[in-house]
C-alpha cells in the first residue's frame, strides 16, 4: 500500500504565500506561466481541503488576484489534457499489476507509480478549482479558460472513469487522499473517491482468480464471459505472421498445438509449403527465403487399391497395408472438387487428417488391427454444392 500523509498538504498555505510573493516580484525568468501553474495548484489544494488544513477561501483570494492575464493565458495554452488521459490509463494498468505482481517489490513500485499518475489528475483538478474561483471573482479571461479546460478534462474523465475498478487495487492510498478532500469536492475527485469501499479492496485479485471473494453483481456476467471455455482457431493473420517469420515462440506453439489436433490446419501448412515453392519459381533471382513448414509424413501403401466409388468427377480408393489403411480421394477434374472428409464409425465426430499426395487427397486411418469392424464414411463435396457420401467397412 502507498501511504499518503496529511502533512503533504500541511505546507500548502506557506507555499501559496511564497508563490504569491514570487509572482509579484517577478524573480523567476520567463512569462510567469510556471509560477501561475504552481500557484493555481496550491490554491486549489487549499480550496479543496479547507477542513483538513484549517483554511478558508480568504486564504487564496489575494494570491489568485495577483495572477497576470498574459501569464494565465500562457499557462492555459500549455495544459496537455491528452497527456492526462494517458496517465490515467497507465495508472489503471499499473494498479492491476500492483495487485497481481510477479513479486512484492515490483508490486510496490507499480502501486507507487500508479498513485503518482493519479496525483497528476488531482493537481490539475486543484488548478481548475482555483481557476474557477478566479473566474467567479469576475475575471473574464479566467472564465473562458476555465470553461474550455473543464470541457476538455470532462471528456477525459468520461473515458477514463470507466476503468475505475482497476484503481480499487490502490484503495488504501485512495481512501487516505479522499478523506482529506472537503465533501463538496470529493465526488468530483472520482480517481480518489469512487469504489473505495473495503469490500472492493481485493476486487482485482478476485477478477484475476487469485483470491476467492464475492463478485459484485455487475461483474458476474463479465466473469462468466471471460471464464467460458472457448477456442481461438488460428487465423489468416496468425498464419501470415508465421509464414513471414514474425510469429513469437508462443504463437508458434499455438500453431503447433492446433496442427496436432486439426487436420485442416495441417493441410494448410502443407499448402503453405507447396505454394512457397511456386513463389520461389515465380520470383527466381529475387532472393526469396525458402520456408520450412511441417509436412505430413509419407504413408506406406499397398500396390492394389480397392475402388470404393468412381464418378465422373472423382474416384475413391482404399489402400490396405500391414502398417496402415488409407483412403484416397482422387479427382478426375480438380476444378470440380470442393472438399472431402473421412470419418470413422468409432470416432464419428472427428474428421481424419488429410494430406495432398501423389494420387490425390490422402486420409490415413490407422493400423489395420485397430480397424476391425470399423466403418469409414467418406463425404465428398463438389463445387456446385453437390455432396456425395459413401461407407466402406475397413
Amino acid at each position, binding site marked *: 500500500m502507498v501511504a499518503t500523509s496529511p502533512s503533504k498538504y500541511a505546507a500548502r498555505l506557506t507555499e501559496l504565500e511564497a508563490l504569491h510573493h514570487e509572482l509579484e516580484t517577478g524573480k523567476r525568468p520567463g512569462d510567469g506561466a510556471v509560477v501561475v501553474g504552481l500557484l493555481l495548484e496550491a490554491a486549489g489544494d487549499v480550496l479543496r481541503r479547507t477542513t483538513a488544513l484549517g483554511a478558508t477561501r480568504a486564504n487564496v483570494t489575494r494570491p489568485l488576484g495577483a495572477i497576470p492575464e498574459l501569464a494565465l493565458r500562457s499557462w492555459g495554452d500549455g495544459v496537455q489534457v491528452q497527456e492526462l488521459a494517458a496517465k490515467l490509463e497507465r495508472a489503471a494498468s499499473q494498479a*492491476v499489476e500492483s495487485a497481481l505482481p510477479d513479486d512484492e517489490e515490483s508490486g510496490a513500485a507499480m502501486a507507487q507509480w500508479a498513485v503518482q499518475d493519479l496525483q497528476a489528475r488531482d493537481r490539475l483538478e486543484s488548478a481548475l478549482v482555483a481557476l474557477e474561483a478566479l473566474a467567479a471573482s469576475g475575471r473574464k479571461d479566467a472564465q473562458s479558460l476555465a470553461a474550455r479546460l473543464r470541457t476538455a478534462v470532462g471528456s477525459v474523465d468520461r473515458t477514463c472513469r*470507466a476503468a475505475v475498478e482497476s484503481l480499487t487495487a490502490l484503495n488504501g492510498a485512495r481512501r487516505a487522499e479522499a478523506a482529506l478532500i472537503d465533501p463538496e469536492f470529493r465526488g468530483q475527485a472520482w480517481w480518489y473517491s469512487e469504489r473505495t469501499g473495503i469490500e472492493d479492496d481485493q476486487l482485482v485479485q478476485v477478477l484475476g482468480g487469485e483470491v476467492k471473494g464475492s463478485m459484485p453483481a455487475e461483474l458476474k456476467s463479465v466473469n462468466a464471459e*471471460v471464464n467460458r471455455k472457448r477456442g481461438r482457431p488460428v487465423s489468416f493473420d496468425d498464419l*501470415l505472421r508465421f509464414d513471414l517469420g*514474425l510469429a513469437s515462440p508462443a504463437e508458434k506453439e499455438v500453431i503447433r498445438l492446433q496442427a496436432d489436433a486439426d487436420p485442416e490446419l495441417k493441410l494448410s501448412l502443407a499448402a503453405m509449403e507447396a*505454394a512457397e515453392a511456386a513463389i520461389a519459381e515465380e520470383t527466381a533471382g*529475387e532472393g526469396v527465403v525458402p520456408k520450412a513448414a511441417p509436412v505430413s509424413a509419407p504413408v506406406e501403401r499397398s500396390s492394389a487399391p480397392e475402388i470404393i466409388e468412381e464418378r465422373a468427377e472423382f474416384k475413391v480408393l482404399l489402400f490396405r497395408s500391414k502398417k496402415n489403411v488409407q483412403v484416397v480421394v482422387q479427382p478426375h477434374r480438380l476444378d470440380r472438387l470442393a*472438399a472431402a*472428409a473421412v470419418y470413422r464409425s468409432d470416432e464419428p465426430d472427428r474428421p481424419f487428417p488429410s494430406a495432398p499426395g501423389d494420387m490425390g487427397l490422402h486420409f490415413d486411418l490407422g493400423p489395420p488391427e485397430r480397424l476391425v469392424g470399423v466403418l469409414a464414411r467418406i463425404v465428398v463435396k463438389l463445387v456446385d454444392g453437390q455432396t456425395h457420401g459413401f461407407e466402406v467397412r475397413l
Partner: protein
Amino acid sequence: MLNDDELFADIARRKALGQDYKRPLGELVFRWRDASTTVIRRVQGAFMRGSPDDADEVFQDAVAKFMAKGLDQFRGVSEQVPGKAASPKTFFLRIVKHCAIDRYRRQREELDSGRGVGEDGEEPETSLPEANRAVAEARAIAEQNEAHGEYWNAWERLKEEHPNEAAAWDLYHHQDLDDHEEVARALGITVVNSYKRVSRAQAWLKLYILEARKRDEGPREES
C-alpha cells in the same frame, strides 16, 4: 516504364502524401496476375479443392488485403526481418497464398456442417439441402458475431497492451493447455510467472469488458 520496385516506391510515396495510389497499384498487381494464378493453383492442388474461377476472387481478395494493410506490413516486415519480404512482388504473392489457404480452409468448415447428408442411407447422393445450408449460414453468422463480440474486442486490446499476458492466456485458455508447467515451458518463463500472467490476463479481460459496457451505456452521473 517504371520497374516493379520503382512503381512500388511511387505508390508508397503517394500513400504517405495522402494522394490517390489506386491506379498505379492496380497497374502493379496486374503485372503479378499470372504469378498469382500459379500460386493459387498450387494451393488448390495441396487442398485438392477449388476451380479456375476461384482465382479471380482470391486475387481480388489479396489486392484488397494488400491495400488495407499490406503496404504498411511490407515496410514493417522489411524492417523487422530483413530478407523475409524480399520484394513487393514476393510479399504480395504470400498474401495471395494466404487468401487462397483461408478460402479452402473455410470450404472445409462448410462441408463439416453438411456432413450429415445421406447418413441414413436413404439419400446418399443429393444436393446440399436448404436446411443444412441455412444451418451453415446461421453458424457462420454466429461465429462472425462471436468474433466481433465484447470478449474478442477485449482480447485484441489485451494483445495490444499486454502481449506477454495475452500469450500466456492464449495458451492456457484458448488452446486448452490448462497447465502452468506447459505454458511456462512454451514461453520460456517460470511456472510462477505463468500463473501471474494468466491471472493478470483474466483480470484485464474482465476489466476491459466492464469498461466497454460502461462506455456503451453512456455518461454517468457523478456520485
